[in-house]
C-alpha cells in the first residue's frame, strides 16, 4: 500500500460523502467489479438451477446465501485500483482461492446476517484479521461508522427488491393487451417458467446492486482508516517531504557550484563555532533537564494564551433518547442473563461474563440451526437425486391414509362384513334388493380405496368413480366396476330391480376381484 499513489483525495468525509465516493468508485471501475461479482455467482447459480431443476428457488437462495463470497473479488480489485495498481485477470484468478477461503465459515454462518457486512469485509479480505484481533480491530473501526454501514445494508436490501419488482413490472407492461394472460393467477400458481423467470430477475437485481453496496461499504471503511491513521496528514507530510527533497537537491547543486567559485575568488573566513554558540545562547540559557522542562511547560500553560475564555450561545438538540435509555435495562433481559448464569454455573457477576454467556447461547443456537440446515439440505439433494431407496415410493403410497368416510358412506375396512356375498344374497332373498346391492357396492368402494388405493374426492359420482377405475390395467376389476355401477344406478335412481341372475353374476365377479391381488 503506497499512500502517495492513492487515487482519491484523502480527506475526512462524513458518512454520506463516503457512500457517494463508494458509488463513484463503483461507476468508475464498473466493468471489472461487476464481472468479478457476476461471473462466479452466475456459474454457481446456473449449476444449482440444473441440480434443483424443479425447485429453482433453492438455487436462488443458495446463491444469495453466498453473497459474502461474491463480494470479495470486487473488494480485492477496488483495493488495488484505489492505489493506482492495475490488476490483471490472471492475478485475480490466482488470488481468488485465498480471498474466498479466508474466514469462510464464519461469514457464511453467524456473520451472514451482519448488517455491517460491507464495512467489515475489508478487515477479513484485505487485512486478513481473525478471531480476537479482528474483534478488536472492528471495535475500533466501528466507532461512529457502523450506523451508516447498517443503514447502507437496509437501503440496498430495499433497492434490490424494488429493482427486481421493477424489472418484473416492466416485462409485464411489455405483454401486449391482446395476449390473454392472467398475471395474478400466474403469480399465485407459479408455473416452472414463471418461477424460473422471477428467480432469475431477482438474481439479476442482486448482481446490479452488489458492486455498489460493496464499494459504498469499502469507502466507509477507507474513510474510517483515513480518520484513524491520519492518511491525509501523512500524505501531506510526504508531499512536503518530496517538495523539500527537491528543493534541497537544487540547493545542494547551487551550493557546490557557488562554493567552487567562492573558494577561488573570495578568501573571507567564516567563524561557524561562534555563530553556533551565539545561537545556543539565545535559545537556552541553561541545560534542559526533565524537571526544568516541566517547570517551563507549567509556566507556559499558566500563561494567558491557555486561559482565554469565550462565551458562545446557540441552539443544539438534546439527546433525549440516550438520556432515557441509559438507566433502563429491560427486566426480561436481566432475568434471562441471570438464568443463563445459573445454567452455565458462572458466578462472576460482571457485564463481561453476562455478554459471554449470552454469546455462548447464541452460538449454540447458530450451530443447531446450521446442523438442521445441513440435514435438510442433504435430504433435499438426496430426494432430487432420487437416491432415497426405491421402495420408499411404495412405502409412501402405502402410508397414504385412506379415508374412513367418503361420499357420506362408511368405507372403513371394519365396516364391511367378512362374508359379503352371503350377506348380499341373504338380503336379496329377504326382498331387500336395494340394501343387498348397496352392501355389495359399498364393499366394492372400500375395496377400491383400501386394496387398490384409488383416490376419490368427496363429490365423485358413481360414474366418475367408475371412470377413474377404468384408468387401471386390471381388466377384471374394470369390468366388474362397470357392471356393478350400472346395476347400482338402475336400482338406486331408476328404481328398477335387476334380475337375480345378474346379482349372482355380480357376486361371482366380486369373489374373483376381491381374492385377486393387486
Amino acid at each position, binding site marked *: 500500500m503506497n499512500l502517495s499513489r492513492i487515487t482519491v483525495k484523502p480527506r475526512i468525509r462524513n458518512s454520506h460523502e463516503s457512500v457517494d465516493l463508494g458509488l463513484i468508485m463503483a461507476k468508475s471501475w464498473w466493468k471489472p467489479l461487476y464481472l468479478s461479482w457476476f461471473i462466479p455467482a452466475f456459474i454457481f447459480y446456473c449449476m444449482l438451477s440444473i441440480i434443483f431443476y424443479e425447485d429453482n428457488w433453492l438455487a436462488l437462495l443458495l446463491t444469495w446465501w453466498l453473497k459474502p463470497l461474491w463480494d470479495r473479488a470486487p473488494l480485492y480489485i477496488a483495493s488495488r485500483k484505489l492505489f493506482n495498481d492495475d490488476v490483471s485477470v490472471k492475478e485475480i484468478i490466482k488470488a481468488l482461492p485465498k480471498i474466498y477461503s479466508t474466514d469462510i465459515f464464519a461469514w457464511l454462518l453467524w456473520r451472514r446476517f451482519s448488517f455491517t457486512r460491507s464495512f467489515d469485509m475489508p478487515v477479513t479480505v484485505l487485512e486478513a484479521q481473525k478471531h480476537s484481533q479482528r474483534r478488536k480491530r472492528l471495535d475500533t473501526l466501528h466507532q461512529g461508522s457502523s450506523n451508516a454501514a447498517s443503514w447502507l445494508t437496509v437501503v440496498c436490501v430495499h433497492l434490490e427488491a424494488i429493482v427486481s419488482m421493477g424489472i418484473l413490472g416492466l416485462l409485464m407492461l411489455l405483454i401486449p393487451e391482446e395476449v390473454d394472460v392472467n398475471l395474478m393467477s400466474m403469480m399465485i400458481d407459479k408455473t416452472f417458467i414463471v418461477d424460473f423467470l422471477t428467480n432469475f430477475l431477482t438474481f439479476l437485481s442482486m448482481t446490479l446492486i452488489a458492486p455498489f453496496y460493496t464499494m459504498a461499504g469499502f469507502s466507509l471503511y477507507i474513510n474510517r482508516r483515513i480518520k484513524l491513521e491520519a492518511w491525509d496528514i501523512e500524505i501531506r507530510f510526504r508531499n512536503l517531504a518530496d517538495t523539500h527533497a527537491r528543493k534541497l537537491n537544487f540547493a545542494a547543486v547551487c551550493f557546490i557550484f557557488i562554493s567552487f567559485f567562492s573558494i577561488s575568488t573570495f578568501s573571507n573566513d567564516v567563524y561557524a563555532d561562534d555563530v553556533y554558540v551565539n545561537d545556543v545562547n539565545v535559545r537556552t540559557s541553561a541545560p534542559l533537564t526533565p524537571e526544568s522542562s516541566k517547570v517551563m511547560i507549567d509556566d507556559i500553560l499558566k500563561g494567558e494564551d491557555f486561559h482565554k475564555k469565550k462565551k458562545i450561545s446557540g441552539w443544539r438538540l438534546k439527546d433525549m433518547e440516550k438520556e432515557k435509555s441509559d438507566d433502563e435495562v429491560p427486566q426480561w433481559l436481566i432475568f434471562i442473563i441471570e438464568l443463563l448464569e445459573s445454567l452455565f454455573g458462572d458466578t462472576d457477576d460482571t457485564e463481561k461474563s453476562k455478554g459471554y454467556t449470552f454469546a455462548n447461547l447464541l452460538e449454540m443456537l447458530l450451530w443447531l440451526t446450521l446442523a438442521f440446515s445441513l440435514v435438510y439440505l442433504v435430504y433435499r439433494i438426496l430426494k432430487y437425486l432420487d437416491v432415497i431407496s426405491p421402495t420408499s415410493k411404495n412405502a409412501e403410497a402405502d402410508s397414504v391414509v385412506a379415508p374412513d368416510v367418503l*361420499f357420506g358412506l362408511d368405507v372403513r375396512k371394519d365396516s364391511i362384513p367378512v362374508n359379503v356375498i352371503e350377506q348380499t344374497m341373504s338380503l336379496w332373498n329377504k326382498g331387500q334388493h336395494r340394501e343387498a346391492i348397496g352392501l355389495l*357396492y359399498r364393499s366394492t368402494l372400500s375395496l377400491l380405496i383400501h386394496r387398490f388405493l384409488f383416490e376419490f374426492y*368427496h363429490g365423485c359420482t358413481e360414474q*366418475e368413480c367408475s371412470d377413474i377405475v377404468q384408468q387401471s390395467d386390471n381388466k377384471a376389476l374394470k369390468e366388474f366396476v362397470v357392471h356393478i355401477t350400472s346395476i347400482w344406478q338402475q336400482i338406486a*335412481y*331408476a*328404481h328398477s330391480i335387476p334380475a337375480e341372475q345378474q346379482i349372482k353374476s355380480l357376486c361371482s365377479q366380486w369373489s374373483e376381484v376381491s381374492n385377486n391381488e393387486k
Partner: protein
Amino acid sequence: MNEQTPNSELNIDVIHASISTLQNTINQVLIGQEKVVTQILIALLSNGHVLVEGVPGLGKTLLIRILSTCIDGTFKRIQFTPDLMPADITGHAFFDMKEATFRIRKGPIFTNFLLADEINRSPAKTQAALLEVMQDRQVTLDGETQAIPKPFMVLATQNPIEQEGTYPLPEAELDRFLMKIFIDFPSYEDEIKLTELVCKNYSDDPLKSKSISPILNASQIIQLQNQLTGIVVDDEIMKYAVRLVRATRENTAIIQGASPRACIGLIRCARAHALINKRNFVLPDDVKAVALPVMRHRISLSADVEIDGVTTDDILNKILETVDAPRI
C-alpha cells in the same frame, strides 16, 4: 324413499330418436358448437330461457334461426339499444282514427323463439319488459293480458368483452334465465369445416345452403316438455341438488348464493339431460353436467375473490368437488 317408477308410457327410444335428429341437424349447420347445442336443447325441453355469453360472430343468431326452422316455429330478433323502449318489445295500444277505436299492436315478443341480441345494451327499464313474459308467458298490454305462443323461448346474448355503455342485468332478470351458456370459438378443424361450408356455396348464409325441413312441430315440443316429468328423479338426487344450491350460500367467496329457483332449474335440466342421453331416470352426473350453466349466473362473488381473478365457474367446480354425491 321416492316411489316413482319409470313411466311405461314414455317411449324413450322414440323421443331420443327425434331429439337426436334435431341435435344432428343443428350441428350440421352450426359447426363446432355441439356442447352449446346440447345445452340449448336442454333449456328448450325444460321450457326455460337462455342467456348466451360470447363474442360476436359465433353463430348465436344462426343457432336460433335453425332451431325455429327445425321446430317449425316463428322467430323474431330484437337488437337491444340504449334508446329501446319497453313498448318496442311488448307492443302497445294506439288509437285508430278511421275506426275511432283503440287497437293493440303486438310487439316482437309474440313469437316462439326470441333472440334478444346484446340485452345488456338497454337500460333496466327496457330489460324489465321481459320479466313478465319470461316468468308467466304472458304480456299485459293496455290492461289486458295477452298469451304468448307456445313454446316460447328467449335466447338473450351479451358480449363479455365490451362493457362500456352497458347495463348489467338485474338479479331478478338473471334468475329468470334457466341457463347461462358460454359460447366459445370453434376448434381449428371445425373452423375449417365451417369456412368451407360457407365459401364453397354461393350463399353466405349456411342455413340457405342446407335444405332443412321441420323435424318437430310446436305441439310435439310441448308434448316433449310435458313428458319430461315422467323422468324418474330419486329423493337423493333432489337432496343432492338442494345441497349443491345451499353450498353456494355457505361459501365465503360468494356474497349472494343461488335461489331456490336454482334447485328447480337443476332438476328440470337434469331430467332433460337424462332424456337426451336416452335414460328415463336422472343420475347425479346429470345434475353435475348442468350445474354450471344453471347456477353460474345466480351467484355473485365477493370483491376480493373477483380481484384475485377467480371466476364463478372455479368456485362452482370446487363446490361440485366437495359436496358429497348421493349414495345408498
